[in-house]
């Protein structure tokens, strides 16, 4: 049984590797390439975070500390290599970030993991604040406000890899992403990985089967920090600058959002979250200034209607898919999508109207909304958008029941088939 699974996994990971290799050919624009690079880094960071939150039950508000420290150490390492002070292949520089993460994870984790639950969350927040404050105080290492600039194209090109062009950096990130993904997945299938789940669910029982919950948390914290540090190292190489923001509270908060949006209950959840959040943050900000508001609302909607994140939504549909009953859901979902789009169109229009009404332009406040000119200075546009939004809300309210009924019918059917 184990053997078969292993073969299946080799096939699976090979497929992921191929996908990583092919992606830059599909999305070849330079902006797409840098976004893919960002996603790779975010995936490593989010997965490492979920080792704490999803697997060990530790809600950390300071995970960017280890990511950021890894980034700083790598920036300095690159500068040392550039100055000819020591030789080290750039390809392996992220490992230095990983080691930095590991050391600080062991050090700071020794303090934070004494407690679990809310105290742990608060201590992690305190440590994050402390490190962020130190970053601005110790300017030799952290570079103060300006941060530490570096140059990734240092040392001798190895096998033609100079890491000058972004495409080479992308493949470096993709390679590390694949390796760390496999490593983090494999870790869930080890004694420590399983006991982390045990400690998350019932730390007391874990004690009475011979495990020290504090030790389990500490080790998981150290390993999570190791992977975060690798991500940070890649960020240093990718951006060629590391500032105090890299290890700040905003960055720490961001990874919490990624994990929750993707879903902390599944290994794959944070990957979805990392991809989606990166996409939203860089794409949405190109189109609207109100993107942070939309992003916040998106997070709220996910947490309220699918606390398990997107991964959980997908997992819910798996038995339906296996039973070949997806077509049963399709009509109600299609109606739901139309209603939802209607409501969102109205909602976004309203928000944008407010935004442009507040804007400083003196000549005209009219703006293009999906090719439609809207003018917040004229009442009829306000009435129009309000009506669209109102109808949308009514539609969604009505359709909700249709979708719910479709689900109920399906659940009954699945139970009869014995699939649930």
């Amino acid at each position: 049984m184990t053997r078969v699974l292993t073969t299946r996994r080799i096939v699976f990971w090979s497929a992921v590797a191929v996908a990583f290799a092919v992606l830059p050919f599909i999305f070849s624009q330079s902006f797409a390439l840098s976004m893919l690079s960002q996603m790779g880094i975010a995936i490593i960071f989010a997965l490492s975070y979920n080792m704490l939150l999803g697997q060990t039950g530790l809600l950390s508000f300071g995970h960017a500390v280890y990511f950021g420290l890894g980034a700083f150490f790598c920036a300095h390492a690159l500068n040392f290599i550039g100055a000819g002070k020591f030789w080290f292949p750039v390809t392996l520089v992220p490992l230095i970030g990983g080691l930095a993460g590991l050391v600080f994870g062991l050090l700071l984790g020794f303090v934070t993991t004494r407690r679990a639950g809310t105290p742990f969350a608060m201590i992690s927040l305190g440590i994050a604040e402390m490190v962020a404050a130190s970053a601005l105080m110790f300017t030799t290492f952290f570079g103060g406000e300006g941060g530490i600039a570096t140059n990734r194209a240092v040392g001798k090109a190895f096998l033609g890899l100079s890491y000058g062009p972004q495409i080479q950096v992308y493949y470096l990130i993709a390679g590390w992403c694949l390796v760390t993904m496999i490593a983090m997945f494999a870790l869930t299938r080890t004694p420590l990985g399983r006991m982390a789940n045990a400690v998350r669910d019932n730390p007391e029982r874990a004690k009475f089967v011979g495990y020290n919950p504090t030790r389990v948390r500490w080790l998981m914290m150290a390993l999570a920090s190791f992977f975060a540090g690798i991500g940070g190292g890649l960020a240093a190489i990718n951006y060629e600058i590391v500032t105090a923001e890299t290890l700040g509270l905003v960055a720490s908060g961001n990874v919490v959002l990624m994990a929750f949006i993707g879903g902390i209950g599944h290994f794959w959840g944070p990957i979805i979250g990392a991809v989606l959040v990166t996409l939203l943050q860089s794409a949405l900000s190109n189109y609207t200034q109100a993107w942070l508001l939309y992003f916040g609302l998106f997070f709220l909607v996910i947490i309220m209607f699918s606390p398990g994140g997107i991964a959980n939504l997908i997992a819910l549909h798996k038995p339906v898919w296996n039973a070949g009953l997806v077509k049963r859901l399709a009509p109600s979902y299609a109606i739901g999508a139309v209603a939802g789009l209607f409501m969102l169109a109205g909602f976004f229009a309203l928000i944008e109207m407010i935004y442009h009404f507040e804007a400083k332009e003196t000549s005209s406040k009219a703006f293009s909304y999906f090719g439609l000119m809207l003018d917040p200075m004229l009442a009829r546009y306000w009435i129009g958008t309000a009506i669209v939004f109102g109808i949308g809300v009514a539609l969604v309210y009505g359709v909700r029941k249709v979708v719910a009924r479709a689900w109920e019918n399906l659940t009954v059917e699945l139970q009869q088939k014995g699939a649930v």
Partner: protein
Amino acid sequence: MTVPALQLNDVRKSFGRTSIINGVNLSVNPGERHAIIGPNGAGKSTLFNLISGRFGVTSGRIDLHGENITGLEPEIINRKGLARSFQITNIFPRMSVYENVRCAVLWSQGYKYSFWHRIDALEAVRERTSEVVNRIGMTRRRDRMAGVLTYAEQRALEIGVTIAGGANVILLDEPTAGMSRSETARFVELIREVTVGKTLLTVEHDMGVVFGLADKIAVVVYGEVIAFDRPEAVRANQRVQEAYLGSRVADAQMGHS
């Protein structure tokens, strides 16, 4: 002279000013099955919590196979070969039956905090886990999530998790609490089977279970052992009858009426 598997020497425990355990002395020889009985609030569960390291003692000394274990952490005591179950089911609800048992097997097989072994490939762990799952009669339920099992199944799993590490001193805290008569009878049989050759200490309310299972009975009242003897002798003990068994219910349970 054999070294007792478990020895309590003038063990005391107070919470604040309230004294719960007032100097308990108890000696259990290897391979014996002991039951601890006593009215509600007598301190039976507290005694278990002290022995297993859940609470620290206020004074006194506890020895496991002649080694002082007073004040050690629960996980250290567990590694020295003492395992316990809980009165209120205490398992890993979001894990399968198999995984629950496996968690309890891991340390005893020497894998500790390893993050370099692939858990599914550990032959010895797999064998031991399957064996324990089989012994508690849950092979067909092995992939079920523990949290959705029936109450009786959860109680059986609780026993499985307790014995899986191969501890030779087993503490069972009201293993049959809340079970029906027929379930209880089956369960006593199960406990007897899985604790063969081990030292067993059990807290129990059901007199049928006590007399069916125990070689010796310790009666705890107000944090003191007032009698410690063979079942027949305990039944005949005047003090026990006055302090605890005097009630009509207990009489009925013991077949005196």
